[in-house]
């Protein structure tokens, strides 16, 4: 199937927002999505964006059952490793279920890799849920390795009240 991979624009935020919700539903946590289309427009397309996006688009005659031609996306941003320097973090990678198995996910990830390398990055990082077997298999096949498993690194979070207390110096 024909598809194109390109940089996301402000106009894509409507479809990105739609697909973010679809991905959250796939991970069974759609009630946790607080970010709106407007937030994405402000946070991703202002002078100092907090993320970048790429879109997978199919021609009109291949549009989805509901009439969408934007059928996949990836959100990424630049991070820094105190050991290796510049790195790229792939926050989201998603292809609509009816468009899977056609190399679109791989093409999106390839594009993020290209952009990361062009920016001087030496590694691409991302997280996967341990029950998401099809994704785990896909990534391992691309030459990725499981840092949590191999090095025992756990992802930690400090949020809400805990973050507020920490900011106030309470213990």
């Amino acid at each position: 199937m024909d598809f194109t991979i390109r940089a996301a624009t402000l106009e894509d935020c409507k479809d990105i927002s739609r697909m973010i919700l679809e991905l959250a539903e796939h991970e069974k946590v759609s009630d946790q999505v607080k970010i709106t289309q407007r937030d994405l427009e402000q946070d991703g397309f202002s002078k100092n964006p907090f993320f970048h996006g790429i879109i997978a688009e199919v021609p009109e005659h291949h549009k989805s059952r509901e009439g969408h031609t934007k059928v996949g996306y990836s959100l990424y941003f630049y991070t820094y490793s105190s050991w290796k320097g510049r790195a790229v973090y792939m926050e989201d990678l998603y292809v609509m279920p009816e468009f899977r198995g056609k190399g679109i996910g791989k093409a999106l990830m390839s594009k993020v890799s290209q952009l990361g390398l062009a920016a001087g990055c030496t590694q691409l990082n991302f997280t996967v849920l341990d029950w998401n077997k099809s994704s785990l298999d896909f990534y391992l096949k691309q030459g990725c390795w499981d840092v949590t498993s191999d090095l025992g690194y756990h992802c930690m979070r400090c949020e809400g009240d805990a973050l507020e207390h920490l900011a106030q110096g309470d213990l």
Partner: protein
Amino acid sequence: MANFNLRKAEPKDVPDILRLIKELAKYEEMEDQVILTEKDLLEDGFGDHPFYHCVVADVPAEQQRSLTGYSVIGFAMYYFTYDPWIGKLLYLEDFYVMKEYRGFGIGSEILKTLSDTAVTNRCSSMHFIVAESNKASIDFYKRRGASDLSLQEGWRLFRIDKENLLKMSAEE
């Protein structure tokens, strides 16, 4: 003791930042993994679009002479990331206080500054990774209300290194 000053890192701090990065890596038994240079740190942290931000803890001259000979004795490296469900986050990349200066509240004060930065920048959360073998650090963070997303929600950190990145980027 406990006279110390926390401030935003400046270009002149780069040699100390690299020294402390290597000390922390040594503590994690990963010293040979650090390939970053002072030049990288300078370019990447103090240019037009910094890849990272740093706060450093320094002590006055009298104290540095008596203990270690250094005035910059702790640091934290962080940057802003994004979660498309909840928005901006602060990511803590490195956080370290020299052994001789621990137990004086310097670490807590650094964390307080960072949390304050997170809240001021309207970040809903502070994220970081810890090695599961580092029990002292895990306890330090859990005492302050941090949760382990790998254990609680099943998140696994994946990585693809340069060699495979090149292969992947060449695929059509």
